[in-house]
């Protein structure tokens, strides 16, 4: 009994000391991350990278991860919402992919059941052709698309992914019916890059970091990136520069548990924001060609609603959602 009192008192002292040292954030106890994907993918890297940065920033004493892959992260989301009600130390990694899966599969549990915390970063797509392709710019691609939409075979990730939606938006902006695009879905960046390198598809698209090395080594030619302005240190023009008014990225962020109080939400948000200032986090952003795009609070909630609508509209246009 006496030992326990001592420990508690020491804990209180420590907390007080920490409070006085860092006035902004108090360390959360064991923070739990739900990752709606198997280890190794983008969701996983995001969650683990952020968790590590939170420990380094001292805003979390320890972190735990749970991987529950499947159905674009919505299986993990359902479990998260059910199991962590009111748990102020739980977070789930989310992003454009999960929104796409929610629009497409209409699961009973959606992000509306959880608490928005923060958007973290954007990852942009690049459009590439094999080095030997006669197509030199997006204008060439669009010209061929207008002439014979079926002859432009677009290779990218699964249907409903950011890759697919970007293609649909390009078609729409160029005055071509998005329902008429010849989109060939591949699983994972590896399969898609092989199909592009082997000239089995006309144009390919994937995250910039995945294609970067092929562009550098001259095996592929980059035609456009999907960001608003050119990526730092890269010379690839944007779609907008080529008068295609499309800007789209694959963003990722975190949500908290349902039913947490406003104070708990603020504490969690502050802890995440402090972690994004850590060197390990900025390093992993730079290493993956992720572009920091921090957005918190109600602005983030509004952003997610807008994304939901945008993705739903694009999916309707290509006939993925009725």
């Amino acid at each position, binding site marked *: 009994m006496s030992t326990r009192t001592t420990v508690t008192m020491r804990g209180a002292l420590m907390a007080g000391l920490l409070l006085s040292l860092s006035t902004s954030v108090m360390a959360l106890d064991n923070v739990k991350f739900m990752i709606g994907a198997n280890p190794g993918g983008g969701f996983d890297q995001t969650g683990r990278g952020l968790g590590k940065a939170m420990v380094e920033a001292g805003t979390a004493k320890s972190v*735990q*991860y*749970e991987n529950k892959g499947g159905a674009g992260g919505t299986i993990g989301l359902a479990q998260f919402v059910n199991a962590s009600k009111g748990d102020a130390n739980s977070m789930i990694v989310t992003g454009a992919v999960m929104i796409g899966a929610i629009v497409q599969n209409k699961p009973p549990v959606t992000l509306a059941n959880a608490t928005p915390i923060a958007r973290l970063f954007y990852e942009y797509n690049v459009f590439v052709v094999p080095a030997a392709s006669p197509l030199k710019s997006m204008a060439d691609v669009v010209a061929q698309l207008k002439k014979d939409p*079926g002859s432009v075979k677009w290779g990218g990730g699964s249907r409903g992914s950011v890759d697919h939606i970007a293609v649909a938006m390009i078609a729409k902006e160029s005055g071509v019916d998005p329902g008429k695009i*010849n989109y060939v879905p591949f699983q994972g960046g590896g399969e898609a890059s092989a199909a592009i390198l082997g000239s089995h598809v006309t144009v390919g698209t994937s995250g910039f970091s995945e294609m970067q090395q092929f562009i550098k080594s001259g095996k592929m030619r980059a035609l456009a990136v999907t960001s608003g302005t050119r990526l730092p240190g890269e010379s690839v023009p944007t779609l907008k520069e080529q008068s295609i008014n499309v800007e789209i990225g694959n963003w990722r962020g975190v949500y908290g548990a349902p039913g947490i109080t406003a104070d708990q939400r603020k504490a969690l948000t502050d802890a995440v924001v402090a972690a994004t200032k850590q060197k390990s986090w900025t390093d992993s952003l730079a290493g993956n060609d992720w572009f920091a795009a921090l957005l918190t609070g109600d602005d983030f909630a509004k952003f997610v609603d807008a994304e939901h609508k945008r993705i739903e509209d694009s999916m309707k246009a290509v*006939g993925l959602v009725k």
Partner: protein
Amino acid sequence: MTTKIWQVSISCFILALALVFGLGVSGLPTDAGYAGISSRFVPILITVFLAVVGALLLWQSLTGGFRHFFDDTANVRADLRGVIWVSAGILLMALLISYIGFVLSAAVLFVCTARGFGSRALLRDLAIGVALVLPVYWLFGQVLAVSLPKLFNQWL
């Protein structure tokens, strides 16, 4: 139940499966895109395949039974009590794992299975079961960082 009833039932099961998959086709989109074949194409092929093999199997079972089939269990008395023990082991593990933890529920499975196969040394089996699971538990927890259900502390 005689072999013939079993064989007819199995054939009917395959035909029923074909029916279920065939009915499911109607809910799939017909949009074929540039490929010219839609999400229905392969399910239809497989449904037809199931129906054909199911029908042939039914025909065989009604006309003298499965061909090239030697019933090597015809004269063996089935040990239903053993099956119940083994089944109970698996079902208990599924049922209890969230409550009594990974190690103990796996040990329960070990004990029940061993009992089903005629082992009577309950305590020894329990000890072997726990000894078998602990290293795996350690591997999951320490190396794979997968957290498994536990009963009360980090070792159980």
